[in-house]
């Protein structure tokens, strides 16, 4: 069925099929599931209009589009954005079904999430693009519109800060005071990267 000639529509279809879940996961991390689905839909709408411009691999480009759409939402509809970002916040801070997890694992996860939450938005964005959304440094640079070199530097620093935060958080989790549901980070008030 699949000859050498792939029409733009077929390419779009393949990209859609392959990347939809990952774009959705990324968008969900920014604005929660519901708004995330809308952002994903808009992202692919843009992709279809510009199907001839989509580079290979498509994912970093798509995430870049999604990121821009989220920023546009933030500008255009601050209230809706705030609500959406709050949901994303709940998701990213690890509110989830813990029944299947081993206690120690929960603790480790909570520690990691608390550590992440204590970092700046720019650090969080960069770190999660790589650790959660599976991008390489080069691909993350495409999403964030910076050079790979400057991204490498930023990543190095962000990682150092994450390591320190992890130590702190793990100490807190392991410590005598139950650290559950401590202060949530002010994620949606938004320093930009």
């Amino acid at each position, binding site marked *: 069925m699949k000859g050498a000639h792939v029409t733009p529509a077929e390419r779009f279809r393949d990209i859609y099929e392959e990347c939809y879940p*990952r774009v959705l996961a990324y968008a969900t991390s920014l604005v929660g599931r519901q708004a995330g*689905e809308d952002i994903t839909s808009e992202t692919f709408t843009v992709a279809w209009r510009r199907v001839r411009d989509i580079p290979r691999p498509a994912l970093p480009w798509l995430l870049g589009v999604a990121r821009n759409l989220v920023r546009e939402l933030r500008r255009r509809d601050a209230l809706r954005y705030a609500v959406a970002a709050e949901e994303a916040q709940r998701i*990213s801070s690890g509110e*989830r079904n813990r029944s299947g997890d081993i206690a*120690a694992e929960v603790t480790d996860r909570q520690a990691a999430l608390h550590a992440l939450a204590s970092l700046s938005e720019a650090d969080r964005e960069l770190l999660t693009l790589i650790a*959660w959304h599976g991008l390489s440094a080069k691909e993350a640079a495409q999403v964030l519109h910076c050079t790979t070199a400057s991204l490498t530097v930023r990543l190095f620093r962000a990682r150092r800060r994450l390591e320190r935060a992890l130590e702190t958080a793990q100490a807190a989790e392991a410590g005598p005071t139950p650290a559950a549901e401590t202060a949530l980070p002010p994620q949606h008030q938004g320093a930009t990267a």
Partner: protein
Amino acid sequence: MKNSSRSGRPDAMKVLADARPDALDPSRPADPARQRTDFARIIADTAGIADTADFLGATGRGHTSPFRRRVGFRPLGAVALAAATATVVVVVGASNSQAPDGSSAAQRHTPTGTHAPSATTTATVPVDGHIELLAAATKAASAPASGTYWQTSTQAEYVDVAEAGSQVFAVHSTSREEWSVGVRQGSGSLMVSGLDSVTEPRTAADRARWRAAGSPGTVRTDVAKASGSTSAGVTRAYTLGAGHPLVMRTNIDDKIYAVGPDNVSYEDLRALPSDVAELRRHLEELYARDNGGDTGSGGRSEWMLRQAGDLVTMPVKPAVRAAAYRVMADLPGVRVVGHSTDRLGREGVAVEFPIAYKGPLGTTRERLVVDPATGAMLSDETVLTTPSARARAAGLKAGTTVDYRATTKMGWGEQQITVPKNARS
């Protein structure tokens, strides 16, 4: 990660990766219905006009794409991934009066000799054409039962306005399509579109303008502000002359058609209710699922008419086909225009969609033409009601059919269709 990792100083990125909230795991399934409807909407809707065929690689080779332009056209079934439910929903909501079944009315009236009251603007009052539609329903109830391949042949045309040099003129593309949907285990479904496709200036006057522009092989159409939904301009090029057919597999395993937001199997189709009220309720439920909390007026009727019209062309039980016609006849806001002739010269009744759309050619309205004598769906067409300045400049007048897809054959076959040698996939 276990306790040991804590003392062992694991890589921070690994710790973070392991802590990814489950809700952000891309291997967790997305909502498949949402994914599919988005796909259909994007493919069918975004560009506003015929550039979808262009995107399909058919640049100007004049073949009509199964991804129909503008508001979707009809079931595409499942195209590899997912399926353009070609039914693209546009507006929404509306109250639906539970109109009576009306089958007795259908039996009382003959399909001939009635006249379209052209001034009818509300469809809540049954008009003669309305009754004819119900006649179609009774005819549709008697049809052969089953076979291996459900096959439809269609002929299509679409019209667009093109530019070359300083000349503005109309071009049109015509082509045929064969769609053969296998309903038995492993039989497969094929669609061959763009058969005998030709793109050329529409009339002698258009040809003269094209010549005046130097008879270019490629002409452009500028869809600056398409249907309103698209902000970006879309430019599409048509290459004049003959085109290649395109072949496409349209099933995903046993899913052979799209009904509303769902891909359905033959078994699903056969399980559809043949009772009018039940079928209506079923479609309303699909509509609710397909449209979330949107509200509006006329949208639900629009959607229901599209779905019911689509069902008629699928291998549903004859009684379901009849029920689908009755659902159509009862939809609020849907106007039945009595006698109408389709572009192939066949007489029928026209069922108008409630919502008019603004596109680059002007305001258009879609309608279905049904043969009340046989219960056959004759054609699905888009008529220009108010031409845009651009369309007028190209000689397109109000009442011009700018897009149609006429069914020339529909029924069961035992052999899969053959794919022409020059077809592309």
